[in-house]
């Protein structure tokens, strides 16, 4: 029982990170039709920026303060890099989707290679507040505290994005743009400003996932972190339905849980530790066979 609780909470923590990546991917795709391969690179760059600042801060203040400062810096860098990428590289290729995908592919390779060249290919120790590494007992399971932070942050981001989309003017424009971009443009609204905004939000969420992944994966970051998480975020986006935030949230929880359960029980009873990863791919295949447009193909909540 305690193992099951631990797996559930850990799976939710993993799902939280998938959701943070997938929400940006999904919004960007929904609004602009761009499959953003560089999203994993935003995550890596955000995580490394945050790590860099934490090494510079040395012994300033308490460890919680240092963590919060460096995390905020990482998020800022993630958002700025993403907005710049949109302005400089994506915008000139407006409406040319293949070329946009190719540019993000080139960018994902070049940015990760740059990080690797600058800070080395091996993992770096990511300093997090000691409280996060301690455990709390839940139904007899000793759960690392960082899991609760990941789940909480993702929940806040979910509520924040949904509220932003529902109650602000820009959210309205984005929702309308996802629905019918040509019509919004015809009404005299410059949708392109929303593009930059969506990229910045996506980059911020990805960097947030990067920072949290530094804590989740035992206080370390490596240059390939973004790419490996990105693939599962893609799966989440497809299962959830392209362009749907709520769909992504549900799919992220499903994927995170299935992966954790199957990985654990697979290696425990079958001596096969990648069962979880394979099950997730199988889930994707089944979703496509049964419901090619994803979970949110029919119902959607933010509307």
């Amino acid at each position: 029982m305690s193992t099951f609780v631990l797996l559930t909470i850990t799976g939710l923590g993993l799902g939280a990170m998938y959701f943070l990546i997938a929400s940006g991917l999904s919004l960007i795709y929904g609004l602009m039709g761009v499959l953003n391969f560089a999203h994993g690179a935003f995550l890596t760059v955000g995580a490394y920026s945050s790590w860099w600042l934490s090494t510079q801060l040395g012994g300033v203040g308490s460890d919680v303060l240092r963590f919060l400062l460096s995390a905020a810096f990482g998020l800022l860098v993630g958002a700025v890099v993403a907005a710049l990428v949109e302005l400089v590289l994506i915008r000139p290729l407006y409406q040319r989707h293949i070329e946009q995908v190719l540019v993000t592919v080139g960018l994902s390779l070049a940015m990760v290679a740059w990080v690797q060249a600058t800070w080395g290919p091996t993992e770096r120790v990511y300093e997090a507040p000691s409280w996060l590494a301690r455990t709390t007992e839940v139904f007899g399971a000793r759960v690392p505290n960082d899991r609760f932070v990941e789940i909480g942050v993702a929940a806040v981001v979910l509520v924040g994005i949904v509220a932003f989309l529902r109650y602000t003017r820009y959210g309205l424009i984005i929702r309308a743009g996802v629905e019918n971009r040509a019509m919004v443009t015809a009404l005299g609204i410059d949708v392109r400003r929303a593009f930059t905004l969506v990229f910045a939000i996506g980059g911020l969420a990805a960097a947030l996932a990067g920072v949290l992944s530094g804590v989740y994966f035992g206080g370390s970051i490596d240059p390939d972190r973004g790419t490996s998480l990105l693939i599962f975020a893609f799966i989440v986006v497809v299962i959830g339905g392209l362009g749907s935030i709520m769909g992504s949230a549900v799919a992220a929880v499903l994927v995170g849980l299935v992966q954790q359960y199957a990985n654990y029980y697979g290696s425990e009873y079958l001596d096969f530790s990648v069962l979880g990863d394979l099950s997730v791919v199988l889930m994707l295949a089944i979703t496509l066979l049964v419901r090619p447009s994803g979970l949110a193909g029919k119902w959607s909540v933010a509307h």
Partner: protein
Amino acid sequence: MRLALRLGLAAAAFGLLAVVPQFSIDTHGVFSSELNSPGTLQVLALMLVFGAVALTYDLLFGFTGLLSFGHALYFAVGVYLTAIATTRWDWALWQALLFTAAVALLVPLLLGAVSLRVGGIAFAMVTLAFAEAGSKLVNQNPRGWTGGEEGTAVGNLPDALVGVLNTKHLYWIALGYLIFVFVAVNWVVDSSPGRVWQAIRENEQRVEVLGLQPFRFKLMVFVISSFLATAGGVVYALLIGSAGPRVTTPAFTLALLLMVVIGGTGTRWGAILGGALYTFLDYRLVEWSDKAFIRESPDLIRQPLSEPLFVLGTLFILLVFFLPGGLAGLTLPGGRRRGLRLLEQSVRTEPTTGTVEDEADPGVEART
């Protein structure tokens, strides 16, 4: 007449490549040693293999408009089955090859049937997911077959393929594979299914309206292209003498995409040239970055330049912006922009949802 000229040019080029191992020419630093030294021949052979594999990818991407991110999987099937069958199961090479050929037809038939249920971007993501599953499986090292991180060696090779002095034999095998792929791709592209593939790239709905089933034709090109890629994996395994997890990674598929776009999407010579050039740079950039003028430049410049992927990725972005037709676009009239432009249609019309959408707007069906 044009056909005769093209055949003549192809024969001349392949003939020239065939006699390379006979000449000991100083390469002036382009390669690390003379033209027919085993080291150079191996790099040349790899260039030929990846030129051909890039062409198999172009068959999918450039000629049919299917953006796959999982081509590495089929290449890796060839690499790993050759190694596993000859060492872990101790089969003779011909048995291993027969078995690999059978698997090379079955796997893409099965996975293609599932992933081709969706189109456009969703297809890209699904193929990526399947390839990732393959990659994880290889790293997991089930029953100790794949050797995990370290990989596994190829065994039971005939004497003529073992040893440094026999590198030229491997080179000729690589050239034979390139010629085989070149002839096969030329043949299928100009056949009647080949015309349907190109029609699917142009406008899938229209093909459907004409009473043809795009799904069958797409599955056909998927299986052919994957089969040829698996054959490339076999040649690669013989050439390297081992199987390593690098060829299973998504990064490898992305490399194939880069090769095709660098050379020229939807062109035959372009894809081959792109594959060869990419491989060449991938192997040589590391050594060049050790040259004095780079070594003495500040860290900020030196470090990124020592990463081939940084240079290739940046080069690739510049090419997409300024020469979307790739290298082949330089020679074609009006071809500078042709290559990628052809593909726009196939991604825009997203057959995912099965409805005809406003072509200017891919996001119409999406929901927030």
